[in-house]
């Protein structure tokens, strides 16, 4: 895909009519970007990326027509949901067409806790359908109000609720999906159970996801609570103890030191300067035990309310996961972030060592999660960015200290969380996208010779 010639977007739009196409500059810019600018490295590399045409199919038939057309003309196609990725997952590196899937937004059915939905349905709208029936997403990214379910599956990994259910890669968290291939005659494939894995977190490089079947969780009355601690060590120990308390039901356990919490502007009236905090979402019946544990571990509850979407203060989850970095960036554009894993029996020590080594250069932000049946924490540290060399020095230190980094400063699939070539993903792409037209440039293992 090295030499892609520009397309005549007016002609393509005319050919595809009546499928909605957008070619105005504002739309092209808006639909070609995500939150890649969190990373100064990606910002340099991707800021000029733009599609030549945005195509908005309204149903699977229009999607198939679009793909068949692009296949015939060898036009690159990059699928896009809400555009809330952080590493250019949905950015068209080689131009061509961005497929805007927001019109594929039907909620198809919900039965016995399993929901079938179209890929472009926003997470918040999915829950608008399911919550009245007593069900909610097992976990969602902090971008719940803007992200789509298809985008989450194709570009995300976990989020608010992973402290109960693990991540998207944990067996059982995606039950089925329907995906359209990039062939002369695009096929709609139904994948079930383990078969879905090659298409999960593949950035849409091996098929366009059009429908998903998701297991939901029964909803609880949730409470949002912030606990203040003298220092990050105390807050992290609390986070761990909370997650090891099997009798306390929690959906979110986020820990920030003051260096990262200081940017949470709407929360500042409640926070004590200099103190670390734990941001938690806890089931109402677990409140008493939660309060007792926080007191026993030296914490002070500084904020508590019924989980809410409305009001002056955004939902607490919008201060967590990748939103933490966003609050910091609103105040200081020079800040960026990391993604690493603190795991193993000594993971709290690893966190302490990272804090001791880098101090205020990497304000600490932890997301507790379940991983393969035990408790661990993702570090989404902020980084006071100096230059790329220093950034990779920090990454190198983390890696050599057994804190694997899912580099958020690369748009290459394998260089992010995956680390190695996912052979199943690659093999699946050979079948579903033999010409390599889907989201080209993201899967390193792919080369035209592969086909």
């Amino acid at each position, binding site marked *: 895909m090295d030499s892609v010639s520009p397309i005549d977007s007016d002609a393509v739009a005319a050919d595809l009519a009546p499928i909605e196409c957008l070619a105005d500059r504002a739309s092209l810019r808006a639909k070609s970007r995500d939150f890649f600018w969190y990373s100064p490295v990606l910002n340099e590399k991707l800021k000029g990326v733009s599609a030549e045409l945005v195509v908005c199919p309204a149903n699977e038939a229009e999607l198939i027509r679009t793909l068949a057309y692009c296949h015939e003309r060898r036009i690159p196609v990059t699928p896009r949901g809400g555009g809330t990725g952080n590493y250019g997952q949905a950015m068209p590196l080689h131009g061509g067409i961005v497929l805007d899937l927001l019109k594929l937004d039907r909620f198809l059915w919900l039965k*016995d806790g399993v929901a079938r939905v179209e890929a472009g349905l926003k997470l918040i709208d999915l829950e608008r359908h399911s919550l009245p029936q007593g069900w909610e997403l097992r976990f969602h990214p902090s971008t719940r109000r803007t992200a789509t379910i298809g985008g989450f599956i194709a570009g995300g990994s976990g989020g608010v609720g992973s402290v109960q259910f693990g991540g998207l890669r*944990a067996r059982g968290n995606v*039950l089925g999906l329907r995906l359209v291939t990039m062939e002369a005659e695009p096929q709609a494939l139904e994948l*079930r*159970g383990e078969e879905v894995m090659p298409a999960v977190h593949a950035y849409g490089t091996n098929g366009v996801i059009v429908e998903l079947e998701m297991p939901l969780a029964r909803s609880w009355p949730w409470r949002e609570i912030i606990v203040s601690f003298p220092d990050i060590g105390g807050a992290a120990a609390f986070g761990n103890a909370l997650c090891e308390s*099997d009798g*306390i039901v929690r959906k979110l356990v986020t820990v920030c030191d003051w260096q990262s919490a200081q940017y949470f502007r709407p929360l500042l009236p409640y926070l004590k300067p200099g103190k670390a905090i734990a941001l938690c979402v806890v*089931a*109402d019946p677990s409140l008493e*035990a939660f309060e007792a544990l926080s007191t026993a571990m030296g914490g002070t509850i500084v904020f508590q309310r019924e989980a809410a979407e409305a009001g002056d203060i955004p939902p607490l989850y919008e201060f967590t996961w990748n939103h933490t970095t966003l609050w910091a960036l609103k105040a200081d554009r020079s800040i960026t972030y990391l993604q690493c894993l603190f795991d193993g029996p000594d993971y709290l020590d690893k966190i302490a060592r990272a804090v001791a080594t880098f101090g205020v250069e990497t304000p600490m932000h932890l997301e507790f999660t379940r991983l393969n049946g035990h408790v661990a924490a993702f570090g989404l540290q902020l980084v006071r960015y100096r230059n790329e060399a220093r950034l990779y020095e920090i990454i190198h230190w983390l890696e050599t200290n057994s804190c694997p980094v899912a580099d958020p400063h690369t748009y290459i699939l394998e260089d992010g969380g995956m680390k190695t070539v996912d052979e199943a993903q690659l093999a699946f792409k050979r079948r579903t996208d033999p010409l390599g037209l889907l989201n080209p440039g993201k899967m390193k293992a792919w080369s035209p010779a592969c086909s």
Partner: protein
Amino acid sequence: MTDLREALVGLELIDHPVQLRQRSRDFYWYSPILKRELDGKAADLVVVPRTVDEVVRVAAACASNRVPLGVRGGATGNYGQMVPLKGGVLLDMARLDRTLWIERGRGRFQAGVRLEAADTEAQQSGWELRMFPSTRRQATVGGYVCGGAAGVGSVRYGQLRDAGSVLALKVVTCEETPRLVELRGVDIGKALHAYGTTGIVVEVELPLAPAYPWIEMVATFDDFAAAAHFSQALAESDGLFLKLDSLLAWPLPRYFRGLEDGVLPEGRHVVMIMVAAGGEMGVAALAAEHDGSVTLQRPYRDERGRMPLYEYTWNHTTLQALKVDKDVTYLQTIFPPQSNVAALIASHEMFGEEVMAHAEFQRRQGRTNCSSLQVVRYTSDDRLWEIVRQLDTLGIKLSNPHSYILEDKGARVPAADLQLAFKRESDPYGLLNPGKMSRWTA
């Protein structure tokens, strides 16, 4: 006893010797040792209170007359938890059976409410019990918190003693003027799993869980090690929402009646599972990866005439075996964290069919572990203790089911200290279930 009976005028009393014997027994006869020790023990009088006030009257009368006082729920314990060692009065809580309220994921029950009734009532408003023993259909809420520890649901929600698993206990003290004490938070430990030695539990507040549509599944395996690894991996699959994960080594399935042909193939080890609907594919795929196959998959329905899978698990496993073979008994053991699977496999290899492996997988401090209720072909006490010693060399520790002594069940020292201190206030004359708390007796 005459003064006592005068004080109890107007209450429902039972003193027929046959009924006294019947109501003074639990399932201690699983153990040949306890059978020898407890056969013949009986209360002198059974009182069936209808209100908490009546419980207070009985407690006052027993305290004033220095008469031992015990409490009976469903009498489904396995170590004589409720068996009156020194006669006296036995309170039968069967008529204290009102559900007081269910709201916002909590339920408050009188102690005599049967777990099945509590679960069913909760389900009517979309909730269910987080965990229950395999004796759900007979046991009471009060009996469970006084004599139980874990159960079906522990694979997700841990143990009864974990913070947040019980929200409150209301107890009546045994004094001339009994007090009603509401225990919440860490104070719950004063009466939780104390066999009623520290107070008469009259109300229990439990946190509930949202009700799920559950699927019962049976997976079978040729190789025991594969089955053990499967059970562990299943419980560690954070994306599979489980309620039950029980491993039953062959020949235990030979004792199980009531399942269709083909569900329990000859010679195969069995894992019994309850998983939230939607998880069936994941369970089957994981079983296949461990060279196992699914032989049963059906929706869980709580209805008469259909035996739920959980009635083959936990303490029911031993019961199913005893129905067929009177010469078996059992052990109750806890496993070393993080090497539990290796220990389980080693114990299976060490004893073969003499000690039939049975493991219940559950959460402990955020991780998966198992406890075991091995079914043992009993030959002699000496051999039984020899087995216990050999298991101990594998890191498998006894929580002795052949003793009615509270502290022999692996009670942790802080909990025992708390209970002893509380008993000094709540039972100054040592009348509550005497002989069970060894530290008091000493």
